[in-house]
């Protein structure tokens, strides 16, 4: 039993060191960044400029098992929104990506809990 656990652990460790696919973009060398973008152009679109988080990483964070469904969910998996501007710049973009990938209306997208909605309606709706 212990052996199986060690084996699984080793497999997990080694898959963490697997190469560029599903990498974290920011710390890579210039050459590796370049290779990654060539392999998946969505690594060439930066969504969170403070932490240099790419569209590919955010989409992966949403579609992976136990993926993100909220703004904070994306933040905790990718660091998008955790940098110096604290999501001031990227939260509209992350919201749009969540809505598109989850086939939801932007007004349904929440910060962390389904009641923590960001957008309350359209412009002029209350007039």
């Amino acid at each position: 039993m212990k052996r199986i656990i060690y084996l699984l652990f080793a497999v997990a460790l080694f898959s963490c060191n697997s190469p560029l696919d599903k990498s974290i973009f920011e710390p890579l060398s210039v050459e590796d960044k370049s290779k990654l973008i060539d392999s998946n152009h969505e690594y060439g679109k930066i969504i969170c400029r403070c932490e240099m988080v790419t569209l590919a990483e955010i989409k992966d964070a949403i579609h992976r098992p136990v993926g993100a469904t909220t703004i904070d969910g994306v933040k905790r998996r990718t660091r998008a929104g955790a940098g110096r501007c604290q999501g001031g710049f990227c939260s509209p973009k992350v919201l749009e990506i969540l809505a598109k990938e989850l086939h939801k209306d932007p007004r349904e997208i929440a910060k962390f809990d389904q009641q923590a909605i960001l957008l309350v309606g359209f412009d002029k709706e209350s007039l």
Partner: protein
Amino acid sequence: MINKDIVIIGGGPAGLAAAIGAYEAGNKDIIILERDNLLGGILNQCIHNGFGLHTFKEELTGPEYSERYVRKIKDLKIETSLETMVIDISKDLVVSAINEDKGLIQYQAKAVILTMGCRERPRGALSIPGYRPSGIFSAGTAQRFVNIEGYMPGKSVVILGSGDIGLIMARRMTLEGANVKMVVEIMPYSGGLKRNIVQCLDDFSIPLKLSHTVTKIHGSTRVTGVTIAKVDDLRNPINGTEEYGECDTLLLSVGLIPENELSRKVGVIINPKTQGPVVSESLETSIKGIFAAGNVLHVHDLVDHVSSEAYLAGKNAVKYINGLLDEIKMIDIQASDGVRYTVPSSLNTNNVEDLTQVRFRSSDVYKDAYVSVYLDEERILHSKKRILTPGEMETVTILKKWLIERPNLKTITVKIEKE
């Protein structure tokens, strides 16, 4: 590696004006790198008017002002690369950028102009107690949702900070159907333009609570209200003055910070008073060939000043490439007595135009005071100002001939005097 004489980082009003300045100075080998899918920068979401009075003698909205410059860029066929994010600048002026289609691109520049603009100070930097509910937005983010995406971020709003963005958003939110309950300002004066107090608050009877701040945010999933309190001279909340204000949204307009991560990374010396690069009269930073202009250099109030400053940076980048920029710092400009900072920080008599605009901000509100300029010990300017406030950038003009007449001049001091 692509060779480009001039690489401009940022296609907002500063970048656009810098490109035109460089072009009109005789160098057409320019590229503007812009991370968004359109040029114009923050002007695209500034749908209100008040832009261009100095530049075009007309009052334009942000997008209209931007359109004038974008049209000129197109007419001059100046190269731009959109959705292109610069991730690095090296000391030898290699600019690395990424783009979805082009991948990672590197430009070997002869001169780089930094025009990245600024970002907003977030809630975390204010340490306001409370949970982390939704409904807290920086004013600029709210502006993006309302003006670009078409969504309302809230129904019942309190705004912290009476700088221009906060005031403008008070009006925007009201006109789109929200109830803006008050604007709260920690200082005893507003940081925004007086015309915005009239048009954005007075017109809608939105109260401005000076010398107050938000001491707690209520609500665990969505904001339910805020506690505000009066502050003392040291800007600390006074016990017993707390009031509760029900709201579902808190907008923060609490300061703009020049976006200098790339600048810091390459080693450009930053002025702690402006959070922007230290520059000479030519707007050259401490690294040869790297220039800066616009909000990345110091946060401006008027886009017209951004444009004229950036145009000059473009012109000087060309001068630098042509070997005509004298790199010695000759004369120090000191900010003293009530002047918080000056831009530029130094002058070289051989480089200056006939008139040099030295821009500064006062560190406090002064009424019926004098702006004085000393050339070493000699007072050369002494102008009375009815009011000086940190929220409004001021200018003094230095004449080239004064410098020529004083070849041994060491220091120019700008200060505020009572008489």
